[in-house]
């Protein structure tokens, strides 16, 4: 299924029907490369303050204008992408690794552990995200590490739930029974029978979580609970610059668009992943 999932996905990506998704993937790649290479690009210093030239519109010197401290918005968007994408990616990794482990382990731990653990997870899933974020930030202070940890923790239970549900269905499959009848222990079952079959659903869940994490990073930064200034992130830029829409509406629009298009692209790719996965699940 690894091979079929991937190859079906790639094939679907190539087909004309999914032009939007392949364009989205291409876009994401470009954004990722730009963000990764931000320090090497011939763009202005994203931290250079110019208080004589704040909130200016697009101009020759500043293609997308300047922000509330006169910093170049284009450069901040590109550098902000490093943060926004990096935080989201790391958070997804964290949530994915932790959530997958939790979900699989719970799925193989017997009914009692299962019942209690899942109830606990239910409780954590229904904890308001903003509240979790507040607590984490109060406990750990600001900073990128906290932000990644917080967002990772917020999405970890959801990940665990998805993985757990899938694990439960895998657990009942005949190949797992077959392995058990060969004498396979829990670890073997998890490593060789469950995990490899979870990859595709993990991929889909990760793509969904990635777009959530981007928005969450943005939301937290918007509320001032995220990235610490002067480091730029898209959400933080929108959060701050939207205060000045009556002065210079463009300044907030550009980082907003960057965020929006990336989330859109992630969702488009995620949709395709899901379309490929769904018939697979049904099989």
């Amino acid at each position: 299924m690894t091979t079929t999932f991937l190859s079906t996905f790639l094939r679907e990506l190539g087909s004309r029907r999914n032009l939007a998704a392949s364009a989205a993937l291409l876009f994401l790649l470009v954004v990722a490369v730009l963000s990764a290479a931000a320090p090497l690009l011939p763009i202005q210093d994203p931290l250079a303050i110019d208080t004589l030239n704040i909130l200016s519109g697009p101009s020759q010197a500043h293609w997308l204008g300047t922000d509330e401290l006169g910093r170049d918005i284009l450069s901040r968007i590109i550098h902000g992408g490093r943060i926004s994408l990096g935080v989201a990616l790391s958070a997804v990794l964290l949530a994915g690794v932790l959530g997958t482990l939790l979900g699989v382990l719970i799925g193989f731990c017997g009914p009692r552990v299962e019942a209690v653990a899942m109830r606990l997870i239910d409780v954590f899933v229904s904890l308001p995200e903003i509240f979790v974020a507040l607590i984490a930030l109060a406990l750990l202070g600001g900073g990128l590490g906290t932000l990644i940890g917080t967002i990772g923790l917020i999405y970890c239970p959801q990940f665990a739930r998805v993985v757990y549900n899938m694990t439960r269905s895998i657990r009942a499959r005949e190949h797992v029974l077959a392995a058990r009848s060969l004498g396979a222990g829990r670890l073997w079952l998890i490593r060789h029978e469950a995990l490899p079959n979870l990859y595709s659903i993990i991929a889909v869940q990760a793509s969904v979580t990635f777009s959530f994490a981007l928005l969450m990073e943005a939301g937290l930064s918007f509320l001032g609970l995220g990235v610490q200034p002067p480091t730029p992130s898209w959400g933080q830029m929108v959060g701050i610059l939207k205060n000045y829409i009556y002065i210079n509406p463009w300044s907030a629009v550009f980082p907003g668009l960057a965020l929006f298009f990336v989330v859109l692209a992630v969702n488009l790719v995620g949709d395709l992943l899901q379309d490929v996965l769904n018939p697979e699940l049904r099989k």
Partner: protein
Amino acid sequence: MLRFLGHRLSSALLTLAIAAVAVFLVARMIPGDPVMIMLGEATGGDPAAVARMRNELGLDRSLFVQFSNWAMRLLQGDFGVSIRSGEPVLDDLLLRIPRSLELIAGGLLVAVLLGLPLGILSARNRGRLSGAISSIVSVIGFSAPVFVSGVILVVVFGVWLQVLPSSGYVPFADDPLLHLSCLVLPSLAIGLNFMGVVARVTRASLIDTMDNDYVALARAKGLSRGRAMIRHALPNAMVPVIAIIGIRAGNLLGGTVIVEALFDWPGLSSLLVSASFSRDYPVIQGSLIAIFAIFILISLLIDLAQSFFDPRVRATA
């Protein structure tokens, strides 16, 4: 059905009990001291005054004693008294919960009214331009951060066109129409994002359901593609849609902070956040418990709604 309800209720109570412990611990985990915050800025937290007030509020007792006092009173329906305002937490909750539910209901209305047709359209016309467009519209709704769409709504409808109040809350009893008009923009802000979710799940579920033999049977009976979809696929496709609506609605209970702030709508989320800022433990605990209780209630309602669309759910009940 009765036994099913009884079973669900008892399991709900168990969840609530676990939640109560978790909520209490989590609330106390936050560093900071409500008394210090209340007295702090002006008096610099004069130790004697702080100690006295802590004692008055019972915050100097052991966590266990505090928990059991709180839990015992909670069992009697007493949510305690806010540290900040000295008012019963329950009063606050009874004011805030209906507002939050109203906001969520408004968002839900927008989401269902726009999201369902959009989802159906994009499923029905899959592979065609109209399908792709409606898919993209729903993804756009889903992708637009609420603080972006919210700001746009305020500026366009509130400030430029001035056709709707940009923000605020007016009690229904004071002026029902003004009350409802205040609800429109925040509902839209929530609803547009929510719409994206509903449309996407509707699309996926409908495409799934369309593959079923009973839809083929419906067509074999002589139903057109459209009617087979609406009459046979759609009701069955609603089950996951309802599930996602329930989950999202539940998440919105404490998750509308940004919207409440943008539109100055005094709901449960902002109560929770402001209580967290001032470490008003009874209010934090009370609102979290309320959120859990409503969450559980919603999931019960969802089960009932699902059983309406899928009698098999009724059977397992």
